[in-house]
């Protein structure tokens, strides 16, 4: 699961700015609770991505609560594209291996 939180966060933020709690809830609901991130550990990933220039943040007050909203930068979009490509290649390769293995077993 290394790199997965980063990929999911970048993908979500591609659609618009969000704050930490919103991101965790969105990942949970959009993956039908298959992917459940440790709620607090999302922030180190966000801070790291921001430090790398992939995200930017701003403080915004909504309904009397001051929150830090994160959004994607152009560098973040490029990073997302690279990660997505690497992830698709990896999952494709794993899928091929799994299906190939099943065929091999069934042939024997």
């Amino acid at each position, binding site marked *: 699961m290394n790199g997965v939180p980063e990929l999911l966060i970048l993908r979500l933020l591609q659609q618009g700015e969000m704050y*930490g709690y919103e991101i965790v809830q969105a990942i949970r609901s959009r993956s039908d609770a298959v992917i459940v991130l440790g709620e607090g550990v999302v922030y180190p*990933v966000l*801070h*790291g991505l921001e430090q790398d220039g992939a995200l930017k943040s701003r403080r915004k007050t909504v309904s009397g609560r001051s929150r830090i909203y994160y959004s994607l930068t152009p560098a973040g979009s490029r990073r997302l594209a690279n990660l997505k490509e690497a992830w698709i290649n990896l999952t494709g390769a794993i899928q091929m291996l799994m299906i190939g293995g099943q065929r091999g077993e069934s042939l024997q």
Partner: protein
Amino acid sequence: MANPFNELRERLLRGGIAPRHVRRYLAELADHLTDLRAEEERAGRSRAGAESAALIRLGGVDDLARAMIEQRQLQSWSARAPWAVFGVAPLLLLAAVWSVALFLLWTGWQVFLAGYDTPFVRVPATGPHPLFELANLYFQLDRLLYFGAPIIVGWTIGIVAARQRLKALWPAIGLVVIGLVSGMSQVHAGRSAVPHGIGHISMSFTFALSAHGGPFGLLQMLVLPITALPYLIWRVQKNRFPSA
């Protein structure tokens, strides 16, 4: 209620995370905890039940600290390059402030003591005072800058080390270096060393006491203990009361 993040704060600072990242992380976790508590209460839990469920969902101190410490780019410069922060930077800062102080000394010498061979004029016991009030103030402020610089730099080392819960080694090295350099420093001035008598100011470093003696010689001896004292007091307090 006790702050649930006190232990996490200490762990992160000791892990080398920059204080600004620690502050923001804890603020975001506190906000997140509030949201989780509200969500649990909406789901029908009691206040106490919602609180403990929210804390479990947020994650344990070990996980929260590890996730942050693994992000190497969030470490402070003091953790990444302590030799630069406590060894090189204080010396450069001291050199910069001393350069300003010496430039001011030279300027004051040209303006207020044009006829004198040195700006270190002794006040005569009788007769007219060679320094007017404004000039006297000018030179005393310059002295304050010169003698105060190492103390302020040393205290800054202590504050940085205390804020980031650093081990004593590098701050101690920095304090000793600053204390020794400032305790050994001597300023010399003379008009005859350069042509046209525009005046020449130089520095040397020796274990001998200040050539100008008096209270400045004493200050020179005390600069190391004065510089290191606040940090030493903090260390002693921290060892006696670790949770303070």
